[in-house]
């Protein structure tokens, strides 16, 4: 086994890129869950965003337009989920699972003619001084704009939840929808907004996979990233900055397993490939070991059907 090629710059760079798609999806899902809705369709919204973004980028030769299309596509999928669960009062778990299957199937259908095409590349950021700094420059300041957008959204969600009235109302709706309703807040409308925001974020995460990280279209390319995002929300105990931490942790483990494979560690490749997922599960178990603490952080109305009765 050869460890001489270890390079911290590559570690951080790979980690930030691997973390970005799940960071998008997870911060979106965090907002959805904060409003009291459990949307298990993240995977479906991600892959639908991935193909929407890919198609628009290839046809119009614009990664920026592609990203917009991905956000809109994800939000539309989420809207479908929202209409079903909020107005028709369908079960959130079953609807979310169905959304995942629907998204996987629909994207495979739409993407048939796009397999094997290479999309136009997304420009990297080139900041005058920062990008030229030794080590720190390539490590932190030379990525594409999406990496920074993801971090900015995390910061924005944190500030909104903590300091603004909109954030307070969102938390209130997720905490006790009956009380929020009694005070005159439009529970369903607020939740629908949150669900669509979550969908848009998931779509962006998917497009980041197909346009930057891989970059090309293959069926089922999200490969469980949506589920990891869901796990990271729990891992983060519904706190935005911990989503960032969780996503980076997952990204770091992803890099390490690739690196160890390349370095020829004498362990079957399958074990290494599964390690990020295994570690996610282990961390989840540790995080939720204290039942009371985990229960205290979760929005109290999470996953409960709201039906206004007077």
């Amino acid at each position, binding site marked *: 086994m050869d460890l001489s090629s270890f390079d911290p710059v590559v570690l951080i760079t790979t980690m930030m890129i691997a973390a970005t798609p799940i960071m998008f999806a997870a911060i979106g899902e965090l907002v959805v869950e904060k409003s009291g809705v459990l949307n298990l369709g993240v995977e479906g919204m991600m892959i639908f965003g991935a193909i929407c973004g890919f198609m628009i980028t290839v046809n119009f030769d614009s990664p920026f337009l592609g990203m917009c299309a991905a956000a809109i596509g994800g939000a539309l999928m989420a809207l479908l989920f929202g209409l079903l669960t909020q107005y028709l009062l369908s079960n959130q778990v079953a609807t979310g699972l169905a959304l995942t299957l629907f998204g996987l199937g629909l994207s495979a259908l739409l993407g048939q003619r796009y397999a094997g095409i290479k999309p136009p590349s997304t420009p990297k950021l080139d900041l005058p001084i920062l990008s030229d700094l030794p080590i720190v420059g390539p490590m932190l300041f030379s990525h594409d704009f999406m990496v920074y957008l993801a971090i900015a959204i995390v910061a924005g969600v944190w500030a909104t939840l903590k300091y603004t*009235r909109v954030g*307070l*109302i969102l*938390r*209130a709706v997720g*905490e*006790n929808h*009956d*009380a*929020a309703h*009694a*005070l*005159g*807040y439009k529970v369903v409308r607020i939740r629908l907004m949150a669900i669509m925001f979550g969908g848009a974020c998931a779509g962006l995460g998917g497009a980041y996979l197909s346009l930057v990280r891989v970059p090309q279209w293959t069926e089922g390319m999200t490969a469980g990233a949506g589920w990891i995002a869901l796990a990271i929300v729990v891992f983060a105990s519904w706190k935005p900055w911990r989503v960032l931490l969780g996503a980076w942790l997952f990204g770091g483990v992803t890099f390490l397993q690739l690196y160890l494979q390349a370095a020829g560690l004498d362990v079957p490749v399958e074990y290494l490939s599964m390690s990020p997922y295994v570690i996610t599960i282990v961390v989840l178990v540790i995080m939720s070991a204290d039942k*009371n*603490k985990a*229960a*205290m952080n979760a*929005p*109290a109305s999470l996953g409960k059907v709201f039906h206004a009765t*007077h």
Partner: protein
Amino acid sequence: MTDTGETPVLLHLDGLTKAYPGVVANDNVGFKIHEGEVHALLGENGAGKSTLVKMIYGLVKPDSGTMTLRGERFEPAEPRAARADGIAMVFQHFSLFDALNVAENIALGMEKPPKMGDLAARITEVSEEYGLPLDPHAVVGNLSAGERQRVEIIRCLLQDPKLLIMDEPTSVLTPQEVQTLFQTLRKLSSEGTAILYISHKLEEIRSLCDEATVLRLGKVVGSCTPREKSARELAEMMVGEVLHVPERANKDLGDVVLGVSDLSMPSPSPFGTSLKNVTLEVRAGEILGIGGVAGNGQDELLAAISGEVKTSHGAVTVNGTPVGALSPNERRKLAILAAPEERLGHAAAPDMSLVENALLTGAVRKGLTKSGFVDWTATREFAREIIKDFDVRTPGSANAARSLSGGNLQKFVVGREVLQDPDVLVVNQPTWGVDASAAAAIRQSLLDLAAKGAAIIVISQDLDELMEISDRFAALNEGTLSDARPAHGLTVDEIGLMMGGAHSMEVAHVH
């Protein structure tokens, strides 16, 4: 403010009607509320009180009829509009957010809240002015019921209301806290705020309210000045019939049946209260009443005796046999039964039929299962027996528990345990939300069960109820149980001290 005829009319309700499928909740309801008046709204469950106040607060639209506020037509489309016109409401439950702090909770109930820092200062200021001390940064989930209510009241006061609606405000308070609340309300009333006060505690209404309107089955059946009527007259106006007061037989107490010694137990829920060194004894034929403000360990005590939470084996004994490590079904076999407070989701499974719910706790003692198979015929028979003996009003035993009104489901839940002939029965809030005549029937059934030699613990927030049926009285305060004292002859002040414990020191000052 006794001379209400002189002050201008604040709110005039006329001909309000609201029908739901199958029931007319309000039928041509009309009355007037004057400025600065404390107006009581009296009625049994289902009399239409809640629907009426929801119409005033803009949560429900009337089918017909008009409301006039200070001479102008008043049709609030939503609570926001009602609040803007000076209507504020303190809810019975459902309107606080446990995980948020006091200031955040209050901000949510305001139209244009100031910055959090300024709001916190305002909260401290107003809460001191009205003698309701409150820390704006405390998390609501950790507050006592009385403190939670202060949050709601202050939320209303910050909006400078003209009419304050209070729905059953004292059901969760200690007597001292009730006194504090009344002082606050009288101060408000003297400043010109009208108060619409909903309650079924008649003595309170007699001491606080200037006028009363009585509703029965959605109609106004009378109005009076409560001071001039006796509590019994008021009750009979509400019920429309002569009340039956539970009778207790003279009885001799037997040996100690249930013993709890030095029981300490952490609460299973994050906002619960841990039990600390609880010791008690109940004899055959005895009813031990346990009072105390909700959330002081009542649920935990019931769980420890019913077996929902296991304790050290010797901490709970029945006839001298330790049972602390047995499961609920093993205890049921030993004739230890319980009826918890939360009807939907704890005492009964909401979406299951009454027959299935009868099976859930009755299977062991009634022999409703044979080698793993359910004997549905016997189970249906058992459910029918409960429905008949306890006058549960339902179309049939196949109806889901959720479809019953609170009072009827409560009768079912208590009846299901009583009819299993327990040696030990623990009930928590047996008559919560049950109307007066049904409550009397439930209490009578508990007295009858005790007369047959069962040892009974009744946990309740309703002191009148505890005084009516218990032989001895003890109070839970922050997980500690006071010594039990004979209930006969206890004064309200003594009870308040037992319930308040250290809390009684913080009784607020009102000038």
